[in-house]
């Protein structure tokens, strides 16, 4: 079953005299439970593609249809609600809210969803334990290592029970031990919750773990390959 359908997605940046096609008419589908790496060199359009996919950056043209909803036809307000309930984000520089503890960062999105306190507490604890930092629930991001912060970010992304998680260069700021452990964690989460993961990366270790690799260059899909990792 297709979770995401992308049709002829294009993003053009107009600088002073030059038009840059960051994403050039990409059409692709992602199925439920996929563990996909979108790869390509710097400036190939991976991040722009992911941002449009996640409803963060408006495309110049084309459609992003998630669960039958064309997200770029939604009002700004409905798009934010859509992101809240359907999309999880893991950013390169973690982007945790610095004044909140690890637990509060995870709980925050559930609070936005209006989940009751008890349910939030239980799920926060469960997710932080699942990502292996249950004991750091009360620690603020500044007291956590990069790897630990990214684990909190993964837990936060999973907290809203999204249909898919977009991770933009999630391992770029991590050492190799943290990277291996994070990839293992995300792979487990993918299997445990059947959540679709889409990574933008040029980290070989992520590619080695991905079951599908989409290669982008100059804003176009160069290749789309499936791998059996089990």
């Amino acid at each position, binding site marked *: 079953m297709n979770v995401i359908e992308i049709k002829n997605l294009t993003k053009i940046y107009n600088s002073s005299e030059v038009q840059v096609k960051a994403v050039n008419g990409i059409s692709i589908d992602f199925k439920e439970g996929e563990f996909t790496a979108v790869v390509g060199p710097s400036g190939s359009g991976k991040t722009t593609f992911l*941002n449009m996919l*996640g409803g*963060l*950056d408006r495309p110049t043209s084309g459609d992003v249809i998630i669960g039958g909803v064309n997200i770029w036809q939604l009002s*700004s*307000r409905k798009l*934010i*609600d859509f*992101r*809240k*309930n359907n999309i999880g*984000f893991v*950013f390169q*520089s973690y*982007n*945790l*809210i*610095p*004044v909140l503890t690890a637990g509060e960062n995870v709980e*925050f*999105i559930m609070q*936005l*969803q209006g989940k009751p306190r008890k349910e939030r507490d239980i799920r926060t604890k469960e997710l932080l334990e699942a990502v292996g930092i249950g004991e750091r629930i009360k620690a603020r991001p500044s007291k956590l290592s990069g790897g630990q912060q990214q684990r909190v970010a993964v837990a*936060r992304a999973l907290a*809203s029970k999204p249909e898919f998680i977009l991770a933009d260069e999630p391992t770029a700021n991590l050492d190799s031990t943290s990277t291996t452990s994070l990839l293992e964690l995300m792979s487990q989460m993918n299997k445990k919750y059947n959540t679709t993961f889409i990574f933008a990366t040029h980290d070989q270790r992520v590619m080695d773990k991905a079951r599908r690799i989409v290669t982008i260059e100059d804003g176009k899909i160069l290749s789309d390959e499936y791998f059996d990792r089990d």
Partner: protein
Amino acid sequence: MQIFTEDYHENKTINNTFIYTDSLKQIIDNEPTITQYTSRLEYFSLASSENLTKGSVIIGIDPEGENKVTELKKWVSEGNYLNKDDDGLLVAIDLANYLNVGVGDSIVLYGQGFHGVMAAGIYPVRGILKFPSPELNKQFIYMPLKSCQRLFSADNRLTSIVLMIEDNYQLSRAMRHMKGKIKSPFMVRSWEELQPELVQMIDGDKAGGLFMKTLLYIIITFGILGTILMMVSERKRELGVMIAIGMQRFTLSKILLAETFFIGLIGAVSGLIVSFPLVYYYHLNPYPLTGDAAKTMIDMGIEPFMYFSIQPDIFYVQAFVVLIITMAIAIYPVIKSFTLKLTTALRG
């Protein structure tokens, strides 16, 4: 405020004095804004001691009433203040030095009394007055009203009645009431009408104060603006994350508005807490002025001190203005929350 006759207003001679009637007393007693009043007989005379003589202003006063209205007693630097039935004098210090007299010495007053009769008498010096104004120190002699009326053969006659109201904010109301009740041949005048040059000086001082206040508000505005700009700039990524993961921009704007309000509130309240003890200290111990500023004030007959007020409205008006400024500046984070570009904000 002062009550005197219309003739005395035109020509300040003892012949234009008046007798304090029951009807006049009733008018004053019935005016709720008047808290204190005192009677005066004021005229000129020569003051002599041995072979020294000088023209002086003689003021007959009710010692107790005068002290309630003008706090005359606090200027006694030597000797004692007057009693109601006293027959002595309080002499301003420069005049006493000129006449070479001190407490216990005698002064001869010699001049013209009511309707041209001769006014002469010898009076002991009970005390020396030291005013902050050199002008006052040069020429003033105070004596009890009865004694003064005897000197000038002006029994029961007064040149003026001095009225005091609780606070200056009630002056215009009190003047309106009194002007409606005081009929010819009497008239009532406020201190503003009697001392226009002082009003001018106060207006000048107020304009300076307003300029300083405006300058301070501008500095405060930029201070708060800087803080808020910094707050938004430093938290751009955090705000971007909040919107990205599902917080509505309107909700975020409300949070930022509340945060800014509390920053303003905490600033205003802590400003009050820190400033009040300092202001209160200077309220109790007025700040002495020196140099040219002091000289100018002394020349105007005003004590060279900077007085601090602890009137509550001064404090809450400032706090309120700071809050208003803060809330006006809060428009910036609100606008920012609606215009924040997520992809830029998330990059930090």
